[in-house]
């Protein structure tokens, strides 16, 4: 090893890039994500098992849902996730202002999800359908409302990292908080990817 090879190695290791073999964000956030995925896994299994035991009820229930709303919400969450991923990309180059703008767009797109979901609930309430109507709607409201709560929490986290980005608290080499928030948001998207076909399509 030459005398000047150490500083070059140290410099290289301080620059973070997606190509590195490291876990993005904070380890604690990943354990939290795993815990959330586990809870939803139980909900998904409960829904599938209940459907097998009440095929007619679940088929009728699914027909009363608005598949288009589910489709719009899927597109909204995927697009919102895209903007969060892009925000992280620009942040990796140290462009905190652009990152903050992209995060704002991500939150606005996520608002579409919230508006559509609430209007979907209101339409069902108008038809006299609520959480006590039958097993299908009990599970429908429980699972989707629980997911909605995660979307709302995700938006709070996005607002927090947006605030920090605007204040210039993140640098290209100090992105752990940003990555943790982004990963949580992608988890919300990941859950919907399973929830949508399970409740609306299959």
């Amino acid at each position, binding site marked *: 090893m030459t005398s000047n090879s150490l500083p070059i190695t140290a410099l290289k290791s301080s620059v973070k890039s*997606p*190509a590195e073999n490291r876990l993005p964000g904070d380890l604690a956030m990943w354990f939290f994500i795993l815990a959330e995925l586990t809870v939803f896994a139980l909900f998904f299994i409960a829904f*599938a098992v209940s459907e097998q035991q009440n095929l007619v009820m679940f088929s009728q229930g699914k027909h009363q849902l608005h598949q288009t709303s589910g*489709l719009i919400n899927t597109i909204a969450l995927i697009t919102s996730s*895209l903007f969060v*991923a*892009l925000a992280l990309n*620009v942040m990796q180059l140290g462009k905190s202002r652009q990152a903050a703008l992209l995060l704002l767009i991500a939150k606005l797109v996520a608002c579409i999800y919230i508006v559509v979901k609430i209007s979907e609930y209101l339409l069902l309430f108008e038809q006299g359908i609520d959480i006590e109507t039958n097993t299908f709607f009990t599970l429908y409201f429980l699972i989707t409302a629980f997911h909605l709560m995660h979307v709302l929490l995700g938006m709070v986290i996005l607002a927090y990292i947006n605030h920090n980005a605007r204040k210039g608290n993140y640098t290209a080499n100090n992105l752990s908080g940003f990555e943790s928030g982004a990963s949580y948001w992608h988890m919300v*998207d990941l859950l919907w*990817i399973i929830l949508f076909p399970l409740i609306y399509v299959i």
Partner: protein
Amino acid sequence: MNDKKQSLSKLMLPSLLSWLLLIALTFASVYMTYLIDSRPLFISGALVIVFFKGQQIIDIFMELKHAPKRWRLLLLSYVILMPLIIAIIYIF
């Protein structure tokens, strides 16, 4: 300046391509409802799409493609096992 722009577009390209694929797969899963009559085949198709969408989110959006293997596999196992369990419940 140009180098920065080039590296930015290089960084953004996977996310944009992934988003396009996710949107296409979403529409595919909805239109499968009208195209496939066989319920087991339809369920299998929809759940295979879930896996591919999940893989895109985990590898590209969550940037786990280059993360330590165990973490990547742990997350990927979720989008393999969940559709598999659901398929077993529905089909068998």
